[in-house]
């Protein structure tokens, strides 16, 4: 009987182990969300200072024209900041999540379906980036924060089936889209809404994840 009991216990723990390991989920590290939010804040601050010579646009409506005119320097700097911040934030989230998976003895592999979703995520982000560039060329700086938020929200919704077991990613996507549409409608608030969407939302999510989800994990 004891022997049998031992066997059942092993079977059950094997089942649990297999179920956990096979979950097709990117367990995103909550702390990495906080870091990504800080990257975003840094980017917003640089852009705000370059364009307006002030950090005030991050905090509220800002109607003043930009400092330098629509020249190549501005175009290059804004584009470079966007690319660097996105790449840095993505890399941070990716590496920290990978390390978190290793820490918990989970595999961090992506099957064909997950890789396809990740591809769609990047397609949407690249198209969003191109739309932003066209706005830059036309001097429509005001519209860019809204466009970024909307495309990022869409990309999050697309990737939500594999990101996190809780379906919270999808709702973050909706929040970003709503913020983006508001930013498009009320352009002077753009940079502030961008900072809320890319910095505050990530910070809140990261902290919430650490507090609620990680604790439950233990």
């Amino acid at each position: 009987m004891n022997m049998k009991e031992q066997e059942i216990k092993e079977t059950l723990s094997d089942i649990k182990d297999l179920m956990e390991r096979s979950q097709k989920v990117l367990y995103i590290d909550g702390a990495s969300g906080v870091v990504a939010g800080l990257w975003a804040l840094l980017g917003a601050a640089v852009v705000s200072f370059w364009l307006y010579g002030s950090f005030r646009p991050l905090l509220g409506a800002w109607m003043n024209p930009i400092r330098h005119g629509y020249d190549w320097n501005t175009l290059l700097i804004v584009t470079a900041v966007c690319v660097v911040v996105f790449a840095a934030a993505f890399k941070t989230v990716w590496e920290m999540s990978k390390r978190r998976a290793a820490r918990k003895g989970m595999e961090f592999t992506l099957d064909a379906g997950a890789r396809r979703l990740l591809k769609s995520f990047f397609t949407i982000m690249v198209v969003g980036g191109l739309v932003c560039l066209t706005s830059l060329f036309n001097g429509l700086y005001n519209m860019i924060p809204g466009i970024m938020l909307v495309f990022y929200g869409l990309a999050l919704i697309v990737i939500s089936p594999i990101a996190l077991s809780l379906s919270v990613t999808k709702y973050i996507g909706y929040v970003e889209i709503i913020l983006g549409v508001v930013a498009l409608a009320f352009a002077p608030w753009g940079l502030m809404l961008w900072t809320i969407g890319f910095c505050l939302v990530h910070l809140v999510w990261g902290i919430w994840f650490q507090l609620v989800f990680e604790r439950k994990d233990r």
Partner: protein
Amino acid sequence: MTTIENLDKAFESRVRLGIMSVLTGAGQSDFNTLKSMLGVSDGNLASHIKALEELGYIETIKQFIGRKPNTSYSVTETGRKAFSDHINALTSLLGIK
């Protein structure tokens, strides 16, 4: 106590329990993923998949990824119920709830 009768004969094989575990965890999974997760041979896995399919516990999903055809498997509603009944029977045999 009739719990011993609640154990599903279909799940006597560890490979079949493994298949059900992976598919329940992953939602859906293809042949090669199952193979590497469970560490079994092609033939062995194929025969167990066939058996579970005939019982109506799992179903195949045929789709294209790019241009490559891809067959994956997922647990049916019947399968889900049978699997959770089996696990409940196992745990109650242990006297834990």
